[in-house]
């Protein structure tokens, strides 16, 4: 890994942490909060690509494990990984990876701005929602013992917010493509 890659992953880890300064919204019917941090996960994938994006998320999880309160609402500590949100947290890694993987393949500099934005939106939806939720819901349903139906239906409450996040990530991905092209420099 080049120094640049190392620093960029650290930067996006920091962006995810900084997004945690926005308060989470707890829902009564599902023990997982709505948080702005998953926007950072999508952004990491869109801007950094698969490998670096996933590593950025791993760095955040490492900080959580150390006990620094880097998750929204000031949460942190090993205990988090034993809580019902653990599946989503692990899903962040794969969400960033898939978002990045698809972005690397679907988006290039020759395309029009609209095509780039729409492609980024789709990759963020697939990685940051489909893949991410698969992990989160499975864990909630099985390990957390919520049952599949309840886990699935409960998680639908995240959809509106996450679609907006995917849109923001897409606009940002396009803006970075113009102002600071990174994706071609794949790790």
């Amino acid at each position, binding site marked *: 890994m080049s120094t640049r890659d190392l620093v960029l992953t650290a930067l996006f880890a920091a962006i995810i942490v900084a997004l945690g300064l926005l308060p989470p919204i*707890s829902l009564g019917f599902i023990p997982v909060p709505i948080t702005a941090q998953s926007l950072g996960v999508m952004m990491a994938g869109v801007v950094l690509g698969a490998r670096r994006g996933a590593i950025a998320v791993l760095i955040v999880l490492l900080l959580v494990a150390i*006990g620094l*309160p880097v998750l929204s609402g*000031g*949460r942190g500590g*090993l205990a988090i990984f034993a809580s019902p949100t653990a599946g989503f947290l692990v899903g962040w890694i794969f969400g960033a990876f898939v978002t990045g993987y698809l972005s690397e393949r679907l988006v290039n500099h020759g395309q029009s701005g609209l095509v780039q934005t729409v492609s980024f939106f789709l990759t963020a939806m697939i990685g940051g929602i489909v893949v991410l939720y698969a992990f989160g819901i499975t864990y909630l349903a099985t390990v957390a013992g919520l049952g599949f139906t309840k886990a699935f239906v409960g998680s639908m409450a995240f959809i509106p917010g996450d679609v907006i996040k995917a849109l923001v990530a897409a606009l*940002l991905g396009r803006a970075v493509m113009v102002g600071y092209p990174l994706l071609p420099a794949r790790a």
Partner: protein
Amino acid sequence: MQSLYVEGNSPMHRLSPRVKLVSLAVFGVVLFVSQNIALLSGFVLLTAFVYRTTGLPLGEGLRRLRPVLLTIAVVALFNLLFNPWQAALVPVLRLTALMLFAAAVTATTSITAFIDEVTALARPLERTGFVQADDIGLALGLVLRFVPEIVGRYQAIREAHKARGLKVRPTSLLAPLIILTLRDADNVAAAIDARRIRRHGS
């Protein structure tokens, strides 16, 4: 999380970074298994005391915690909506104690010390052949460095608006913010290479 180190010579400063980091990890687990409100309240008082001993002036100490305190307050409010007050109090006490202790650790552990310690702890992982302990330490240290920087960049962009007599709008904030921090990151990478901080010995 504000990770600003304060120069000082308090007992927390003198404690080895390893002891602090391991205690933090262990404390995180202990907090999680505790349900007892009295015990958790004790932890809050204790960690508040520890935080006060770091030598941070009271105003500055509170100012640093403000963002996290605010979000904890929001968590508490939501919990109160759905739960009896006892059940709502437990997570608030947990979060507050963890935040106070983590803030005390970060205020008394310089980023250099943090990097060194994480590097030392990660050293055994090198045998897997996947990672360099030096890189893990450096990456985690850089995150702590970047969080305040991102906040600072946000401030700088607001100032750049003001310098031209413009009002700041959130819509024109995010993209410049990310692009500017990306450029900062590139510069930091160049500085690390230029100063041979990473390549040496590897």
